[in-house]
């Protein structure tokens, strides 16, 4: 069994190959590169290094979002096309859960986040021991979400490369219960993605779609306009 893991849901690119529970190769870059241009060459290069041919793959794991809309789509398009055309299972995993796995084993809660501008983030809350979701992934005002987290009154580990943008606010709201992962543990790791994928069900390849956790601006405006109309 050989799993290929692909996470392009934010500016880092994370790839890995795991064969029968052994990590063959794992790559994480944080170079703000264009995934559309570089993801496939990086996959090709990595598989060449590991001497794994496309036909040797038995499973594809992919980060399904939330995150950058375009980034999530690139990873999912590549993963869907590989899985469908090689006739192998596809396992989508929450991009936030992949980040949360950086804090697995933390005695308390793990809160992964990705900045989404204007004081908002894609954010979720997971149990540190089991990585079970405590509050579902969502797009939220950061402060509002932190107030919900505060109610648990438990230690919380924050992870994700955008944590630094919100560190002051997090400390202000949560005080001493807030903990921050080291910078080496803020990037997504595709080995974690694959390990999570092994526990998650395979998805119908054709129906696998990004979990954007946010409707488009055009739809939001359209909905507002519709609501404004008399019935």
């Amino acid at each position, binding site marked *: 069994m050989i799993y290929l893991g692909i996470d392009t849901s934010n500016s880092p690119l994370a790839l890995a190959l795991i064969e029968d529970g052994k990590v063959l190769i794992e790559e994480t870059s944080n170079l703000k590169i*264009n995934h*559309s241009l570089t993801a496939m060459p990086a996959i090709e290069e990595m598989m060449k290094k590991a001497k794994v041919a496309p036909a040797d793959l038995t499973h594809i794991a992919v980060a399904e979002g939330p995150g950058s809309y375009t980034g999530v789509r690139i990873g999912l398009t590549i993963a869907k096309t590989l899985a469908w*055309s090689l006739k192998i299972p596809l396992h989508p995993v929450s991009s936030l859960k992949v980040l949360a796995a950086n804090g697995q084993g933390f005695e308390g809660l793990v809160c992964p986040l990705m900045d989404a501008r204007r004081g908002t983030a894609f954010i979720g809350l997971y149990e540190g021991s089991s990585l079970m979701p405590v509050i579902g992934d969502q797009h939220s005002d950061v402060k509002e979400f932190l107030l919900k987290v505060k109610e648990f009154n438990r230690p919380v580990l924050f992870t994700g490369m955008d944590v630094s943008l919100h560190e002051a606010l997090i400390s202000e709201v949560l005080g001493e219960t807030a903990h921050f992962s080291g910078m080496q543990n803020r990037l997504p790791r595709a080995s974690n993605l694959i390990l999570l994928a092994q526990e998650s069900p395979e998805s119908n390849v054709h129906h696998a779609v990004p979990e954007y956790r946010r409707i488009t601006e*055009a739809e939001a405006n359209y909905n507002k306009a519709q609501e404004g109309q008399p019935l």
Partner: protein
Amino acid sequence: MNKDIYILGIETSCDETAASIVKNGTEIISNVVASQIESHKRFGGVVPEIASRHHVEQITLVIEEALQLAAMEPHQLNAVAVTEGPGLVGALLIGVNAAKAFAFAHQLPLVGVHHIAGHIYANRLEQEMEFPLLALVISGGHTELIYMKEHGDFTVIGETRDDAAGEAYDKVARTLDLPYPGGPHIDRLAHASDEAIAFPRIWLEEGSYDFSFSGLKSSVLNYMHNAAQRGEKIAPEHVAAGFQNSVVEVVTGKMLRAAEEYKVQQVIAAGGVAANKGLRSSLESVFKEKEIPFYIPSLPLCTDNAAMIAAAGTVMYEKGLYGTMAMNGRPGMPLTSWI
């Protein structure tokens, strides 16, 4: 004896998710198009983020259907051809990444095709091309006159300096409160009208093969505005006919002059607006009179499709023009020759 060539084409440059298998660049084996038009209608135009979302939902389904209808397996294909540009960047890169992943999975050559080259080669699926050739590509995103000395040799001799023709059609249609996309509605109204408002013909400077449609569009808007201020009712069909007459006369005039100057053996038109009845009948009659063979592909091949990408991709494949895994969607890709 030459072996047959089978190319999988993929097209996602705007609001159609399409895949097709073409044999020898001339014969359609399967041709699948998933249109998003219903989804964009409520916004009065294509919303790029929504187009991208639909492409990722449809892409593997559409490619699978193209293979199933052709009763073919990936290993029977010679290459994968995909629209590399121009188009909406977020939309293009769905097709490009799917094509790259498919080519990688089955170790097939990858060919990146220019969308306009595709529109021109759509003709080859119904009628072999004869050179030298003049092609008009006219759609919601493009208005270009292209001269071809031979396969893969493109010289853009004229293009729009502002709006694409189809864009002007849609804008005029919107001011007439016609539903999106407005082109076919204007065509229908114009066809039924017995009178036409006299709008200007925008020829630009003498000898130019370029087009401009925004001035004409403004004239139409001014006419509507002035009529509204005077409290006069306008007849939408007279406006539609006047607008369409101006477009048709200028496009036909420039094409005829170019066809004669370049002494072409064949004239072809392609793109969504080439389906316009008024334009089609005007072009047919002038080229018939001049005895220059003129062709327009049937409607499904005029609008965006992947068979045309596979058709153009076949010629590129034969020339060994392969792309790499580093191919990206190129929204502003220029049309360059392959020779």
